[in-house]
């Protein structure tokens, strides 16, 4: 089936196009970077058709060879100007960033309610990105789980002190996780939402953290 072939070709080459030449559907792809370099020294019209045509079609007419070569060159988005290259790089970077954002948002909306049931997917969908990130922060505090995994280091406002070092110890961390899950369940029982990190004043120990969270939640 041609649809299966099209999917395979798109997976391999990114872009697949179709044009009707000599009474047949010709499926073709853009040139690769290596091929673009080669045609600086080789005759393009004698070589490009054989490289780019994906289905079993042999073009005979001169006009068809010229056309398929020029269509393939157009599809290859050749950049002739340094400024164009800069613009294209920025556009591609923006497209990737947008896609990361969209994937992140979808991931949060789908997964967060199952571990932090204070908000429904619809409520999350109606939030702005800053609001969503605040909810993620609350969920991380309440569940003791890192929801956004990253290797980046972010400077924290709170300098390292004896108290925060205490939380880093493995046995303390485990106790914190268990205790915060219990606290979260208690807050959910009262229909209360966990406060944000910014609202919690620098706790002296685990009990102090929980006390503050309860007070702020109105439990």
């Amino acid at each position, binding site marked *: 089936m041609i649809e299966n072939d*099209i999917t395979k070709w*798109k997976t391999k080459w990114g*872009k*697949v*196009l*179709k*044009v*009707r*030449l*000599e009474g047949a559907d010709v*499926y*073709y792809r853009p040139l690769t970077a290596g091929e673009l370099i080669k045609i600086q020294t080789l*005759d393009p*019209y*004698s070589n490009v058709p054989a490289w780019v045509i994906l289905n079993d079609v042999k*073009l*005979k*007419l*001169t*006009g*068809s*060879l*010229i*056309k398929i070569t020029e*269509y393939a060159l157009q*599809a290859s988005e050749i950049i002739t100007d340094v400024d164009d290259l800069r613009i294209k790089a920025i556009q591609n970077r923006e497209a990737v960033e947008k896609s990361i954002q969209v994937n992140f948002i979808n991931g949060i909306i789908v997964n967060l309610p199952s571990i932090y049931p204070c908000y429904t997917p619809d409520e999350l969908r109606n939030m702005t990105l800053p609001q969503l990130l605040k909810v993620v922060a609350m969920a991380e505090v309440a569940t003791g789980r890192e929801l956004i995994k990253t290797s980046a280091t972010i400077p924290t406002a709170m300098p390292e002190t004896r108290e925060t070092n205490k939380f880093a110890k493995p046995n303390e961390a485990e106790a914190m996780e268990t205790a915060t899950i219990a606290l979260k369940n208690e807050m959910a029982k009262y229909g209360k939402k966990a406060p944000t990190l910014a609202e919690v004043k620098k706790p002296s120990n685990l009990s102090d953290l929980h006390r503050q969270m309860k007070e702020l939640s109105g439990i």
Partner: protein
Amino acid sequence: MSEVTKEQIEQWKAKYGKVMKLSLSGIDYYYRPITLDEYLNIQKIMEVNQSGGQVETAQAGVLFPKLPENPSAGIALNLSEEILKISGFLQDSPPVEL
């Protein structure tokens, strides 16, 4: 002027794939598609001479009768258009991204 025979036409077809006939001003012109090399050569001549390429195309593609060095503009234009058509330069439809 000698007539073109059926045998001659068959020989041309075996060699060039397609042979067409066009009557212009009472003269039957037999012509064929141009090859890639011929087309690229015509492009070079067009660049050098700053010409439209109709005369060169007609001279490359016409099999019979032999065209003069400077054929009339109308003859050259009509013939070159028909030769380009059978050479695959006629636009079928634009390409579509899938």
